[in-house]
């Protein structure tokens, strides 16, 4: 388990208040049915499922508190985004960026916030703003490179 962050009150409260948490023990000598079902190849591994059990976000390896909270917000945002509830997803992506700007999940949140903004408003400037944000804050990230085509959109 990701035992470090779980010893922090804020993490416990956030998880208890926003998710139904479940822990699944793995056994590498005798892989379990759950490991096969979810394709778990390494631990710790974390999956965020919507209430119907559909996977929306996954991350692998130890993550410190700031990264964990960012992933949890991002997972919530992606559930809304993947369900075409873009107006609901936008503030969740923005929460990743405002509360956890240095987290590893932040560039993905910035990219998807731009796409969600475009889908919600049909205004391509949303994509250009996402590109500008990524270049300004996360210029080395893959997400900045993925957004590069949006640099041609006029503001």
């Amino acid at each position, binding site marked *: *388990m*990701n035992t470090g962050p*779980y010893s922090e*009150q804020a*993490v*416990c*409260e956030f*998880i*208890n208040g*926003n*998710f*139904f*948490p*479940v*822990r*699944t*023990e*793995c*056994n*590498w000598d005798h892989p379990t049915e*759950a*490991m096969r079902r*979810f394709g*778990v190849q390494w*631990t*710790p*591994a*974390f*999956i*965020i*499922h*919507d*209430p*119907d*059990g559909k996977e*929306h976000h996954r991350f692998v390896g130890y993550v410190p508190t700031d990264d964990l909270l960012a992933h*949890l917000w991002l*997972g*919530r945002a992606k*559930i809304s985004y993947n369900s075409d509830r873009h107006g609901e997803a936008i503030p969740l992506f923005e929460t990743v960026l405002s509360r956890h700007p240095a987290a590893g999940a932040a560039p993905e949140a910035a990219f998807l916030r731009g796409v969600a903004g475009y889908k919600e408003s049909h205004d391509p400037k949303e994509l250009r703003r996402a590109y500008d944000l990524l270049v300004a804050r996360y210029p080395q990230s893959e997400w900045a490179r993925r957004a590069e085509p949006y640099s041609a959109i006029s503001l």
Partner: protein
Amino acid sequence: MQGIRWDTDFLAALAKAKEAGRPVYQDFWFDG
């Protein structure tokens, strides 16, 4: 401090999630 209220049964957690409309956070761990 109140810790995380873990379930160990995914399907039980999913049933609660469906009823409450709240997502499931699943942690796969190995005690090596």
